[in-house]
């Protein structure tokens, strides 16, 4: 069973006006699909490593950021139609172009998944396996954000991170073409 997913790094600009102001990675978002089943996972640092003093209003927004994004994604999924993962990523990027922004996107095209047989049916199995892969992907990304200076000490972000997932949804399996391997 092969999965395809996008992994996006979410960053926060501490001061959009100032050229010297840093853009700090604060989270990771993954959305993927296998066998027509799709799911999205979001991880955000609970205490973003921002040393610049910020107004309370911005701190409050940072605190609510995971809720806001998950709510947006859920709203997108409530349209009652299949939502391709590329479209989910596009919507996600579209909603993050200012202080919060997507700073990098990587795509994994054919990741092998192992179904554990824990789901109620084959589709449920696929969703669980995909979820597990996406949790691992955002987890690796978040741990990577804990690297400190030149020592590259790998550690979790100081305040830990919060992980959310959307319910899985069903898309039509991608059509097989002659020059493109089928998801199996």
């Amino acid at each position, binding site marked *: 069973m092969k999965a395809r997913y996008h992994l996006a790094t979410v960053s926060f600009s501490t001061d959009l*006006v100032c050229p010297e102001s840093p853009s700090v990675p604060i989270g990771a978002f993954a959305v993927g699909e296998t066998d027509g089943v799709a799911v999205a996972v979001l991880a955000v640092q609970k205490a973003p490593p921002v040393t610049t003093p910020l107004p309370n209003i911005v701190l409050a927004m940072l605190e609510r950021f995971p809720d806001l994004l998950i*709510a947006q994604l859920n709203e997108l999924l409530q349209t009652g139609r299949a939502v391709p993962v590329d479209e989910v990523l596009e919507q996600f990027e579209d909603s993050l172009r200012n202080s919060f922004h997507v700073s990098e996107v990587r795509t994994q095209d054919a990741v092998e998944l192992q179904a554990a047989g824990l789901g109620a049916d084959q589709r449920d199995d696929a969703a669980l396996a995909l979820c597990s892969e996406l949790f691992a992907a955002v987890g690796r990304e978040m741990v990577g954000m804990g690297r400190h200076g030149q020592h590259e000490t790998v550690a979790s972000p100081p305040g830990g991170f919060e992980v959310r997932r959307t319910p899985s949804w069903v898309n039509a399996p991608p059509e097989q073409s002659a020059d493109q391997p089928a998801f199996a």
Partner: protein
Amino acid sequence: MLSVKEIGARWRANPFVEYPWKVDGQGHCRKGHSAGCIAHCDELGRNVYLKPKAPLTPRAAAHEKIASDLAHDLDVNVPPVVLTNPPPGWDGQFAVCASLVLYPFQLHWGAAKHGVRNAESISDADALQETVRGALHSDSALRDAVLRTAPVDAARAFAFDVWVNQPDHDHPSNIAWGAHSESNSSLVFFDYEMAFNTAPLIGHPPAGQATTVPFPVELLQLLDNDVLLDTVSAIETYSAASLRNIVGRIDQRWLGSSDGEGILEVLESRRRSLRSAISSVMEVAS
């Protein structure tokens, strides 16, 4: 660092200014049709948003400049824009503009309203309160900050958008809530690349069919009517000579003369019907 007022005045007076742009630090290209990016230069000491690397229309930068200059004169919160040289690496694209970044913190209205593209209200009851509450929970300071200037900002922008035939403010990225602090924030309106609608645009009705323009439902419901009518009056009485100067002074590398004449025709004809178009929208909204 120059102030927004200083830069705004300089850019209003000069359609083109050359700067030694640097693209680094925060300068990664952001998502968007125009593939713009954040840039800066020592002389300004502030960030700008440079666009378009990949224009939807060949007149994109000129449209941004004209809209910004008009907005400046009408006190609509559109960032100052100047036509400028491209940054290093933008080979083959010379018709570029810079839009000044105004606020240290900016959140898209689409995010603030807790919605997605083209979504109308997500609430079945009190749309405004529910959407703001949905995004900002019970933080009354935050909610109040968003709502403090929104009726005035949105009223000015809506009248302006109808005039310039802005088709792109149903997109969540093109309106932002910008904040310096809790007590100093505003709605700011971006991206007039597709305004003036003198040519068919993908996914939008042609100019002749449009009496009004897409605008977030939540904002339409809270417009300050007095400010709206004042802005309509200001547009109706705006100097025709200034209008011609703003459009006519743009170099033909950014805007051909026949395109400029087309824009002037759109602006003159639309302001004649502006009051009736706005009235029909307000009747529906109420």
